[in-house]
């Protein structure tokens, strides 16, 4: 009977991690493994210690947490002896698939490198920020609305203009795809990172990117755009 509960933990949508008293991971469920491929385990160990109940038992704390593309709304930390402490993170639903019925698929094929260069040149006209690029050079041309994409991207760069250095990274997302109108498309990840970001742009950028099937994640010092490669 006890064994049958393990399957529920293993297959839970929410990440669960069990740490030993030495801080080593003794057990992680599938959801936690995915999370730990993006985020350092130490962060969750520290979190567990900070929110552990004062005595043996379990304590649930509601709080907003954001790590990379993961969002959580609560955690439960528990321990029944001195040897192990566990943490479960309650995940907000990942909205990977584009459901915006008003979004459009552009007919024009675009070269994403030219669009990035255009927006960087534009940002450089009014700023001395140093723009660094780390771009996967193998991305083919694909369907993308140039007007809407540059509109969003220039806003993102504008938001980073107080920063000394802004780094743009472009890579293919291996093994991840997005469903748009019943068809799956491979994803590109374009991230723009700088020391300072003006948070005022968030709403307008998300509105624009959603209209062209791009998922936008706003983080403290980074904006990540997940772009479907529609050929």
């Amino acid at each position, binding site marked *: 009977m006890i064994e049958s509960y393990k399957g529920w933990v293993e297959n839970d949508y929410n990440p669960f991690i069990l740490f030993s008293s030495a801080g080593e991971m003794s057990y992680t469920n599938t959801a936690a493994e995915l999370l730990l491929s993006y985020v350092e385990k130490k962060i969750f160990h520290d979190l567990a210690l900070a929110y552990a109940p004062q005595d043996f038992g379990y304590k649930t704390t509601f709080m907003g947490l954001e790590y990379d593309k993961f969002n959580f709304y609560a955690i439960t930390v528990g321990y029944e002896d001195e040897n192990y402490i566990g943490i479960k993170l309650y995940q907000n639903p990942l909205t990977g698939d584009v459901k915006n019925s008003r979004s459009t698929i552009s007919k024009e094929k675009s070269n994403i490198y030219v669009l990035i260069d*255009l927006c960087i040149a534009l940002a450089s006209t009014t700023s001395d920020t140093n723009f660094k690029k780390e771009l996967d050079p193998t991305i083919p041309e694909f369907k993308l609305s*140039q007007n809407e*994409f540059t509109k969003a991207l220039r806003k993102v760069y504008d938001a980073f203009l107080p920063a000394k250095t802004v780094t743009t990274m472009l890579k293919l997302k291996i093994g991840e795809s997005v469903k748009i109108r019943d068809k799956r498309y491979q994803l590109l990840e374009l991230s723009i990172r700088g020391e300072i970001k003006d948070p005022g742009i968030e709403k307008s950028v998300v509105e624009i990117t959603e209209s062209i099937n791009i998922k936008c994640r706003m983080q403290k010092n980074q904006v990540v755009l997940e772009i479907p490669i529609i050929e």
Partner: protein
Amino acid sequence: MPSSDEIYIARAKSSQEVLKTATLFQNLSINALITGPEGSGKSTLARFMQSDAVVADAQNVDEVLSLLERSDKVIIENFDKLTKYTSLDFSRKKVIGISSKKIDEKIVDRFFGITIELPPFSERREDILPIAEKFLTQAKEVLMHKEDIPLDIERLDISQNGHSLKKSVFFKLLEDEITEGELLLLMESFLRKRMEGNNIYREFLYLYEDPLIRVGLERYRSQLKLSDALGLNRNTLRKKINELSIKVLEDD
């Protein structure tokens, strides 16, 4: 085909980035808004970005709507003067808007992928002399003047950017060949518009004295020598220099 430098001069760092943006824009399907003060080169840049576009003035809304219906590539001047935004449809068009005034961000977001802001000439001083030289070539052609003249950046007027710069270059060329008769005609024209009051002689005496003393100081570099040359008492000359607020480089 003329090079980009012959059309849009860019020596300052910000101008070079503008030129790079404009060059990339040429092969893209993006709508652009160009803003900047009067005379900052917005129309020149728009024509460089889309040389085969038709041009409409937003002060004539019907003309704008009609050109948008008929043409794929349109430049709309005075975009800030446009009133019927709701009737505009830029879909499947390539449009460049030009405006000297700031436009509401919601309207910019609705129509334009990018906004290029051109700074005034005072913020891109490296561009001034090359642009003045371009105007000088035009002026020599118009005025059929063969000789070259030196251009001093300090004496060129950039208060209204390209507009005043062009005027001051043309004026500089005219200065070089103006005759006494033409100068008197200019003075007459100037005075005719201002002939009012009861102290006119003293009021306009500076028109003769100011340039005379400035040139004299340039040449003699000493008030003593200049007072001798002018046949004026040294104290009288000093008084006039003070009255006219003339900067003296080297006092005697």
